[in-house]
């Protein structure tokens, strides 16, 4: 197409070979821990980020779990350090915390 102006006209048929804009996904799947057969007699640890009424929800769950399972011990979030990101323990400073506390399982709150 001829044009008297200085505007350069790009052909409608100009084709572009576009590159992928993302990055390689690094994936090293962490296998999930073996689940428990029962909560009876187990120690349940609580981890809380300080938000969205996790403290109240934990108390409710403690009561409901204790009604259904006997001999359960709770290690409350107040008994664990909160020196890490989001109010959780600093895992670099306490790498074996959950084992040392005797946690058979953990409940983590609260995503919202």
């Amino acid at each position, binding site marked *: 197409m001829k044009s008297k102006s200085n505007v350069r006209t790009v052909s409608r048929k100009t*084709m572009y*070979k576009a590159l992928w804009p993302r990055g390689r*996904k690094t*994936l090293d799947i962490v296998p999930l821990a073996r689940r428990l057969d029962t909560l009876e007699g187990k120690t349940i640890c609580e981890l809380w980020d300080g938000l969205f009424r996790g403290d109240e929800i934990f108390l409710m*769950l403690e009561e409901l779990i204790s009604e259904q399972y006997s001999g359960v011990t709770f290690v409350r979030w107040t008994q664990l350090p909160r020196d890490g990101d989001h109010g959780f323990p600093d895992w670099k400073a306490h790498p074996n915390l959950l084992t040392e506390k005797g946690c058979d399982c*953990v*409940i983590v709150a609260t995503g919202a």
Partner: protein
Amino acid sequence: MRASVQAEKSGIPSASLISEGFISQGNLTAGGLWTPSLPLAMIPGHPDLHDRSELLRAVKEVTFNQVIKALTLQPEETKTDVQSEPKDKDIIFEGTFEEVNKFFYENKWQEGIPIVPPTMQKVEEFLKYTDRSLDEVIGVLLPDNREATIWNVAVNGVMAGCRPEYMPVLIALVEVMADPQYGLEHSANTPGAEELITINGPIIKDLDFNYSQGALRVGFQANTSVGRFWRLYLRNVAGFLPHETDKATYGNTWRVVLAENEDELAKIGWEPMSVDQGFKEGDNVLTVARYTSGSVIVSVYGSTAEQVLPYLEDSIVRHIGWELFFTTGSLGMPGAACTQRPHLILSPCIAEVIARSGYSKKDLKLHLYEHARVPAWKIEQIGRWSNLFPFILCELVEAGVAPRQFCESTDPNRLVPVVCSPDDFLITVSGDPNRNNAYVFVHNGKFGYTTSKKIELPADWKQMLKEDSEK
């Protein structure tokens, strides 16, 4: 969920409590943390909006059973198919400009406005402006756990409409993203805060960043396209997508880059903000922080610092609300304390008024600290209203969370600062030199912490700029 992953890695099963609106984000985040099958236990609705009986019913009827299931029933491990993804340098699509954009939009690689098709030729033009290897991995970005490389910085720089010579700035931006101090993983949180990039150094003039009238407005290629690059890169490499991993209630759009007026600073004898951040004057530096909101302070009146400062200080106090959480912290999140860093932008003429009253920047920060104050009861009220930090301030001080100055007495009317230290204030000078407006940005604290990086230039920077400008 990172805490849940830590437990799983230790061989301890976990149940992650997630409110209903976050289930899909929770699943996607679990995938990014290498545990795609991580079991979640839902709390119906939003906990903060239930009365006690509603919350109890939600927990009894739904959450409790899902917790038991999460802890006692082995989930089926999800298989992921990373091998089928394209690789760097793969041509992903060939078509016209419109066809490329349609394809990219359908794949969520552009945000709804056209991108510049990233072709090999265009990317190679960007790569000329760095001495670093194109395969260098700058970091691995959450939530998708993808590699940020020099290569894909160039690809997204092309797409954002940047010029090749912006490449050193773009690399420095991604270095911020990869710095754990910044907290990139919080870029999709509910408040929907957005970053502001501030730039200092001779590169402002090298690349023609606007630093005068309309300093925060689109219209200047450097400011606008570099700002766009940030969000595009968060989308394509970090993996933040609305309705998926991005849970902003509303969100903001990306901000144009703020360039400081260093001519004015030299005139009044103030240092650039980059020097406050620990760099040498004359270094090319960018500083990034996430801000929940920002607002103009209009019609600042007075011919002395004593006349203009009360209005500025009152404006700072009025704009910081729940964000005081990042000043005081809470018992549940003590690490949030003392991470609030509000950013005050002064137009040159206002900065001059303050400077000619004998104030250095340090003096100004001290004045702001001593006078931008709020009654203690107000902070406690906001804490209760939001349920983010429902504590008495003195309890936080006693617990070692908030510093001592927040409990110098128990008088609820005592005035307390909005930051922990005068140096927590960021001050920059920019905008129309002859308009008496200022601007305040309120900070998202540790969830987008103020982080600065030096911009590294290629060895023959000046020569390359000269040659390219003559083309």
